[in-house]
């Protein structure tokens, strides 16, 4: 029974990773850009939400807000930050210099933004974890000896729903077609009338939305936010993305859930410190044996750095 409980916990934990992993896979699949700001976007939504719910709007504009509007504004902040990242990183992707490291430009500047956002939050609020209060902190559902946290189930459903919507958007809508055309060949897409410069920000809005939502769900589920909350989730989501295959939305879902499961099961069998070996070892072995992941395309992400 304990084992079943662990499997369940693993899947619910994986639900948090799924949103972030999909954000990673989207930017890498469409723009061939490993966006390292994703973990901080996740953190921004949680921390901004917490700050609003405790202090209210800045400059004394309002009293402390309720948890829902706070988190909604937090998600908007994540989207805004993501657009800022687009303005200063991806716009410079097509450098005129003929150097092999030019593709590393957005990667490196996204690392710069990772530091900027993380330390801005640290400067504002210090490095302590903060309790995020919601009315349903311990709403649990007891079925046949299993404890199921209802917020977690709801958030798993929400992330899966968002991802399903995203998948529909990508395959059915005009924007989705433009995005997929850009992913395949930006030059050909331009010739076919896709305005690449206007379609790229859409990817970043989606990234901000997915990360912000995941951050908000994390805050509600675990009742705790901290400036470092993105680091662990972000790296696990990267692992999930790679396991699922770069550029595959459904792969990112499977990968996120697999990582969540691996994590809880290895804690269950080998103790808390074994997580680092099991998750990253799994990733390393998979990268070496089947680099395209479970569902990925062979071609994505092979461009030279």
């Amino acid at each position, binding site marked *: 029974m304990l084992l079943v409980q662990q499997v369940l916990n693993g899947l619910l934990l994986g639900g948090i990773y799924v949103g972030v992993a999909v954000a990673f896979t989207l930017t890498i699949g469409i723009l061939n850009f490993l966006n390292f700001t994703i973990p901080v976007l996740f953190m921004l939504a949680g921390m901004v939400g917490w700050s609003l719910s405790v202090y209210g709007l800045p400059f004394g504009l309002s009293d402390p807000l309720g948890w829902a509007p706070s988190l909604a504004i937090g998600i908007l902040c994540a989207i805004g930050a993501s657009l800022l990242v687009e303005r200063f990183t991806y716009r*410079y992707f097509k450098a005129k210099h003929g150097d092999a490291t030019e593709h590393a430009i957005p990667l490196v*500047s996204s690392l*710069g933004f990772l530091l900027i956002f993380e330390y801005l939050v640290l400067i504002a609020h210090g490095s302590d974890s903060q309790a995020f209060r919601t009315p349903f902190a311990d709403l649990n559902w007891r079925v046949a000896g299993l404890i199921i946290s209802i917020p977690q189930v709801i958030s798993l459903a929400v992330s899966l729903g968002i991802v399903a919507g995203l998948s529909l958007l990508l395959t059915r809508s005009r924007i989705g077609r433009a995005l997929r055309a850009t992913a395949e060949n930006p030059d050909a897409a331009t010739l076919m009338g896709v305005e690449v410069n206007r379609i790229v920000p859409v990817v970043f809005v989606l990234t901000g939305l997915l990360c912000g939502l995941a951050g908000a769900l994390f805050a509600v589920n675990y009742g705790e936010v901290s400036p470092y909350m993105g680091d662990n989730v972000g790296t696990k989501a990267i692992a999930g993305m790679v396991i699922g295959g770069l550029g595959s939305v459904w792969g990112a879902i499977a990968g996120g859930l697999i990582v969540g499961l691996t994590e809880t099961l290895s804690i269950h069998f080998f103790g808390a410190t074994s997580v*680092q070996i099991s998750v990253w070892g799994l990733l390393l072995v998979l*990268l*070496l044996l089947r*680099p395209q992941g479970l569902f990925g395309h062979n071609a994505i*992400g092979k461009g030279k*750095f």
Partner: protein
Amino acid sequence: MSGYLAGIVSILGINVIFAYGIYVTAASGQLNLGGAGFQAIGAYGCAIMSSVYGFSVWTSILIAMAIGGAIGFVIAFPILRTRGVYMVLATFAFAEVVAGIIINSEFLGGAVGLPLSDYVEVNAIIAATLLVILFVFYLMSTRVGLAMRAVHDDESVADLMGVNNRAIQVMSFALGGALAGLSGALYALYFGFVEVQYFNALLSIFVLLYVLIGGTQTAWGPLFGASFFTLVPEALRIGEDWRFFIFGVLIVAMMIFRPEGIVTRDALDRLWLRLAPGTRHG
């Protein structure tokens, strides 16, 4: 030399050697985001050799370098099967696994860390740093260095011109592992203590940034990058958090204005021309 100055010079030396360890792989076109893993191998290798087996300081350092180099050599074969983003992620995963193994190993002190009884003076670190700098400059001026540049710029053309790509890439990984191992050994001996928390993902990111921002085209790049990012924060004596914020802003700005790094071949050529008109340098 005052204690404060000695401390800064030691950290500078360790960072410069570490940056060269990442640079030699970057110079042949591979991004290694697992620097902390290689440095940890050197640091723990040296700590074990010195404290557990009682080797002398210099022997421990050499063994640590050899272990770093050997692991770099071995790990290069599987890692070189991956390319682009996958290689960045594979090296990152490698560093995480190394940290995970250390934290789970009682022999290596686990999460508590290992103390060292031996010690190196700052002069030894300065000497080692100068040797490494001279060695890398010499290496980049040889045919091997030229081959590394060729592989970095275009693998297929380098292959057509008769460069053994794989040998060059494996060699640069092994050499990078040895240099990162050396920096780890010096770190362990200078601070007299190693703990796995120090060798985290942020360290790997920082050292890669030193190299990329300094510039991968010439051996001046990492020297400049590591010195700049070790000394400037020291000079800006403001809150720790603001330092890193400014560091982030500098990174974004540099990628916009000088995406190939601060020190480029062009810039050096112009500089030499101004200093000594009429001559040409590589």
